């Protein structure tokens, strides 16, 4: 296949071309209340071709892998680019000479999940589902397994020849509790790059499932908080989510060009000096957003988005880096062969500080300790919102009652400015989910515990 792709680079009429052969094997199992709702294996792959002609982009893809089919697809991409050019006001001028990358990249995998049969996985999920439902107040349960094996070949006009093998796996457990007409769910998930032993390196599967059970049981007795502006202590999962949703998206250079809140703010103070926020595709080998090289063939390097409170750098692809004078650091990503690369985060996190984890709560007179992220969104103006699984009320430095149904909201940079303490722990904790921006991306996020001020959504009286 590589020879075919290289021949087509030579044949292209484009000013720039990249061809990506991407195959994906996916296995997905879902067991719900004793029944196997889904056991499936899918294979999808093909070639995605992006080409720059007359200063405009064209993209086309095919699942057929004969050379004549790929050539035809390349011609479609070139044709699409020419038509795009007729609709554009300003042409893409190119992006200078990029250093070609020639290499093979492989995810670090300890006991590949492919070593374990589908039967083993079905049995594991079935056993956990049964164990969860045997616990008090738990009337239903769900366990989900999703594994992805990716193989890519990326070649481009700069002479890049990259071969990549990636393995990512997700494991979700949800316990549904029901008592006196009250229904709640508790969930616990893991998502990593790596194998079976990496996935269960910290907590065995049984412990993960029992954490979901405990959360559901606790939430059953919880009340709703009263909504207000409050001091909140966030756990690493929520710190990851805030970094991703509230800040990360606003510094994606395509959103910056569209007028996001981060536009024109480089070198401005946007956060407390305690905050250094980073995006890095190879921050650790097992974070779910592990991306050693992106789909433009750019090696991952560390982006210090915020350095000690000052906005330092956006996240780029080659094109916008050239326009805005930045450096692409491996953030142009495509989810499947039929998706073009666009600017995405990888692993986004806040660096740990030197505060003790327990002190964050002990020093807080009144507020909330928030754990566990649910759905979240943010606007280009930096306003974010996401749901929180557990909200513990802090009273005089101690955790008191547990509350449910809370969400937090605020303006990203304002919330970062309000941070008055950053703890010395650190964890990646967002790997079980996906980021959506016209196409999916596997990302991770995390950080230490930290304390800030945000709006906690809840009930109002009368």
């Amino acid at each position, binding site marked *: 296949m590589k020879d075919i792709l290289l021949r087509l680079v030579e044949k292209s009429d484009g000013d720039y071309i990249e061809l990506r052969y991407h195959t994906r094997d996916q296995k997905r199992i879902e067991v719900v209340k004793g029944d196997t709702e889904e056991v499936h294996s899918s294979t999808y792959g093909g070639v995605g071709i992006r080409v720059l002609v007359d200063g*405009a982009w064209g*993209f086309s893809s095919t699942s057929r892998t004969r050379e004549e089919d790929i050539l035809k697809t390349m011609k479609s991409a070139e044709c699409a680019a020419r038509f795009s050019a007729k609709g554009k006001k300003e042409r893409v001028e190119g992006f200078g000479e990029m250093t070609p990358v020639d290499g093979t990249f492989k995810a670090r995998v300890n006991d590949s999940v492919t070593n374990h049969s589908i039967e083993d996985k079905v049995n594991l999920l079935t056993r956990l589902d049964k164990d969860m439902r045997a616990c008090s107040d738990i009337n239903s349960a769900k366990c989900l397994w999703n594994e992805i094996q990716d193989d890519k070949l990326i070649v481009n006009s700069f002479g890049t020849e990259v071969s990549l093998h990636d393995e990512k796996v997700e494991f979700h457990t949800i316990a549904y509790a029901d008592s006196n007409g009250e229904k709640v769910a508790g969930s616990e998930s893991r998502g990593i790059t790596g194998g079976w032993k990496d996935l269960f390196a910290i907590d065995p599967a049984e412990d993960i499932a029992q954490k979901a059970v405990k959360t559901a049981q606790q939430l059953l007795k919880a009340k709703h908080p009263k909504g207000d502006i409050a001091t909140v202590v966030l756990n690493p999962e929520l710190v990851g989510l805030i970094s991703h949703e509230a800040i990360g998206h606003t510094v994606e250079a395509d959103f910056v060009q569209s007028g996001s809140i981060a536009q024109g703010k480089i070198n401005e103070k946007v956060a407390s000096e305690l905050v250094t926020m980073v995006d890095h595709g190879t921050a650790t080998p097992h974070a779910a957003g592990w991306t050693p090289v992106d789909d433009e063939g750019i090696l991952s390097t560390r982006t210090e988005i915020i350095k000690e409170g000052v906005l330092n750098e956006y996240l780029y692809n080659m094109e916008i880096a050239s326009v805005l004078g930045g450096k692409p650091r491996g953030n142009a990503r495509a989810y499947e062969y039929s998706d073009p690369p666009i600017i995405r985060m990888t692993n986004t996190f806040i660096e740990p500080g030197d505060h003790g984890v327990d002190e964050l709560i002990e020093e807080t007179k009144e507020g909330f300790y928030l754990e566990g992220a649910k759905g979240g969104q943010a606007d280009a103006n930096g306003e974010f919102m996401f749901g929180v699984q557990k909200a513990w009320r802090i009273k005089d430095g101690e955790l008191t009652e547990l509350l449910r149904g*809370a*969400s937090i909201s605020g303006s990203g940079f304002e919330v970062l400015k309000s941070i008055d303490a950053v703890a010395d722990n650190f964890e990646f904790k967002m790997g079980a989910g996906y980021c959506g921006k016209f196409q999916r991306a596997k990302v991770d996020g995390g950080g230490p515990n930290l304390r800030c001020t*945000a709006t906690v959504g809840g009930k109002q009286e009368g």
Partner: protein
Amino acid sequence: MSRLLELGENILRKAENIDDLEIYLVTDTNIDVGIQSNEINMSRYHVKEQVGVRVLHDDRLGFSSVHSLDERVILKKVKEAYNIAKNSIPDENNLIPAPKKVSHLKGIYDKTIQDFEVQDAVRNAKLLLETCLNQDDRFSFSDGFFATHDMQRAVVNSRGVSESERSSVYICLAMGMASDKGEISNEDLKVGGSNYIADIDVEMVARELVESTINSLGAKKAKSFEGTGILSPQALAMMLFMGLIYPLKGNRVLRGMSPFTDKIGEKIAASNFNLVDHSRLPKGLRCRSFDREGLPIPKLKIVEDGVLKSHLHNSYTANAMDVQSTGHASGGPRTIPSIDPTNLVLSPGNRGLEHLISEVENGVLINRFSGDINPVNGDFSGVVKGGYMIEGGAIKHPLKNMMVSGNVFDSLNNISAISSNVEKVASLLYMELPYLQVEDLSFTSG
């Protein structure tokens, strides 16, 4: 016989040793012109060919899918699905359905799509972008596209189902925001879609988006309170309907994850709440003659006068609950059939939106909702987007930093009025919805 149907039938013949087999085949010729940062960004052209294979063996389920219409490749996937089935847990409710008479819809395929080229899509994308930018200097177009899909799908199974259909979709999406003197408005989005090119009005989508973002400039904070919310069709779709649809699905009901488990025939909403699923709704974007399993989709009363009339079923959940499938098997070739509505229609009331607003003493007009809905108990909490404060029966000012919380099921019973104005909402689902006035919502100011 369509090419897909022929291929499906061939596979069935060659895999006749497998008793229960279903093949779902889809091709999609897609043109997509992206718009980003006030500029045409990229044109795309794809032909996708996908097949999903479902096998039952001794009540055990196996599923496999592939991006290929190569017969040998698909036969390999049949074997793989069979091997998976052999290792699954038996479940007597697994079922490949017998055929039922399908009446084929007309009016969902615009033949001109076969001549629609990338340059035509570029022209439409440019019209969308320029209409936005020419309307007001303060508007900035962040993301969007104009796209077409020429789709063929076919489903065949070993019990005799053999159906195919072709449909066309033209769709545009525009996202943007307004900025003025350092203030950035809420980002908003509008979607337009139709089966026919003649019915898609990209200029109207553009005008509505610009108007909405410009009007939301000058937003002010308000105090926290408990009171009335008037939900726009878009907010209604995102807040209440997302929370309502999930527990209506047969699989949620079956697994004890729905509050509607034993509620058929019981009151679940205000008595003026009438909800129908209409798979043949004129100009509905999700019209289809048959569902993911090849079964017909009769018009379904879901809620009538506030009383729950039916859940939504595919063959599996219907079999497990000893009822007939409602024909709501959904999803693509990459997953086993799931459950989704087609086009949802909520009956309008008899008073205009202006009248609804005039009766609100203290409340918020919610245009969009960005938040989290707990699918298990219906609790929701999120941010009001493009909202307006209503005081003394009149709109006072655009709102900022306001959160809204409540519960979907309580809110359905707290509907105090439904507007006569109806708007189309095309997002993940297609809906025709009025404005809904809901009492006792919690608004928290940030």
